[in-house]
């Protein structure tokens, strides 16, 4: 479904992503892990083409993502969240959700922003996330945890086939974390494909079908969670080598 071929990205001569190769299967949850500065978020930004790659190819089915503008990638059915939630605080919660209407708001621009149809869908998603009744509130007045959930909600609003989540569990309490895990598993069962960046190893090991490990811009391991846990190179990347 998603295939990265030798993707390379550098900033001022520093290789942030170095010849990365991996493939994601449809209907799976894959985790992209690695120490801070490994290049995980940069790779996400390359997939959604916020950064153009210097060389290599990124395929989503037959589409070359590295040659497409960001908005077209979104319209292909690839949704993403950000490490630091990028909610639009001056808009209401419903407007934040509606903005992500399936197919992109770029279609039928002359229609009213909030229709009965997309309002219903927004309400459904808020219900699904357990934050119903917040619709009319300004996004800026929500707590961090609520924003984190809504960040996931905005991704779901577009009903994407491939969901890229950048640290969905970062900074959230245990109760919320359990909710997020439940939502991700439900999405997988609905046939969605999820690629997530995460530092919470319990979450990664619990829900991932595949784990991809990055270090210093390179993929150093890929496999089932149980295999990754025993991988010496991964342990060294996380814990450092013995002197």
């Amino acid at each position, binding site marked *: 479904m998603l295939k990265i071929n030798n993707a390379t990205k550098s900033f001022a001569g520093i290789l942030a992503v170095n010849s990365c190769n991996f493939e994601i299967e449809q209907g799976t949850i894959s985790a992209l892990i690695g120490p801070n500065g490994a290049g995980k978020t940069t790779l996400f930004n390359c997939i959604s083409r*916020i950064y153009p790659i210097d060389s290599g190819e990124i395929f989503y089915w037959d589409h070359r993502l590295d040659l497409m503008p*960001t*908005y077209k990638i979104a319209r292909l059915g690839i949704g993403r969240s950000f490490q630091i939630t990028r909610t639009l605080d001056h808009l209401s919660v419903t407007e934040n959700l509606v*903005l992500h209407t399936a*197919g*992109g708001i*770029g279609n039928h*621009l002359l229609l*009213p*922003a909030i229709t009965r149809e997309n309002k219903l869908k927004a309400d459904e998603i808020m219900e699904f996330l357990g934050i119903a009744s917040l619709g009319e509130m300004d996004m800026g007045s929500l707590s961090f945890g609520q924003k984190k959930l809504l960040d996931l909600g905005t991704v779901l609003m577009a009903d994407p086939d491939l969901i890229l989540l950048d640290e969905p569990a970062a900074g959230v309490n245990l109760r919320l974390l359990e909710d997020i895990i439940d939502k991700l598993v439900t999405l997988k069962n609905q046939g969605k494909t999820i690629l997530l960046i995460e530092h919470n190893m319990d979450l990664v090991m619990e829900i991932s079908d595949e784990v991809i490990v990055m270090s210093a811009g390179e993929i150093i391991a890929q496999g089932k969670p149980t295999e990754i846990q025993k991988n010496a190179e991964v342990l060294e990347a996380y814990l450092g080598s013995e002197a």
Partner: protein
Amino acid sequence: MVLFSFLYITMSSSWNIIGGYGGFISIGHNVFFGIGAYFSGFIYARYGISPFYTAVFAGMIATFFGFGVGLITLRVKGPSFIISSIALLMIFRTLFDRWELVGGAHGITLPHNNLSVEWSKIPHYYALLVLMVLSILLSWYVRHSKFGLALRSISHDEIKSEVTGINIKIIKVTAYAISAYLIGAAGAIWGDYLTYVRPNIFFIILIAANMVLMCILGGKGTVTGPIIGTIVIIFFNEFILANFGASELNIFFTGLLMILTLLYFPDGIIGSLKKRKLLPGFLDWD
């Protein structure tokens, strides 16, 4: 004063589309006012076709031009965009000051209409009234459309907007062009009202600054903000002029009014009242 209010409500409501909803503070938007005035004025002076007929086309020319300019200037944002909008105005002032075909610095003098003195301004009154109503309807429509939501999203986070599937370039440029339409048409009518079109009347920064100040005072990014801001500034200005004469005091007091308003109503009158849940329902069109 009523004509002046109609004119400025038209212009500030139009400016609000790109400046209020889109967040691009253009301090050169009266370029479109001048383009509309010159287009219709030139045709009137040369071919005798009244600006009341050509105002529609003057708006189109302004829109077309706005699209072209937007493609270039909307690549940048923030202070860089503001400076580019001022530069645009300076270029136009210089260009029209030297363009002999349209009279250079002397501009174009237009014939008076055939109506008697007491009726001569009535056509302008109704034309500007229509433009004002259209500008408010357009602003309301944009505010409540998907296009407007996309624009408001872009104003705060372009990257986030793009990953939701919004073609930000097209939205920004289209908003800029739309905002130019009624300003251009108003320029055509205003030129006929004044009976002359000159660079030092139409291409001065004061006109664009007024649009911006009226929107900020009333509440930019709201439908009724530019209307209220325009009325407050024009009436306040007239009050000062009536009581203190034609001195520079009106500028001083207008500045003072702005400072006080922004201190106590940082989101403008409408925006701040809404935030405090004190806005009367009949003023809440958002």
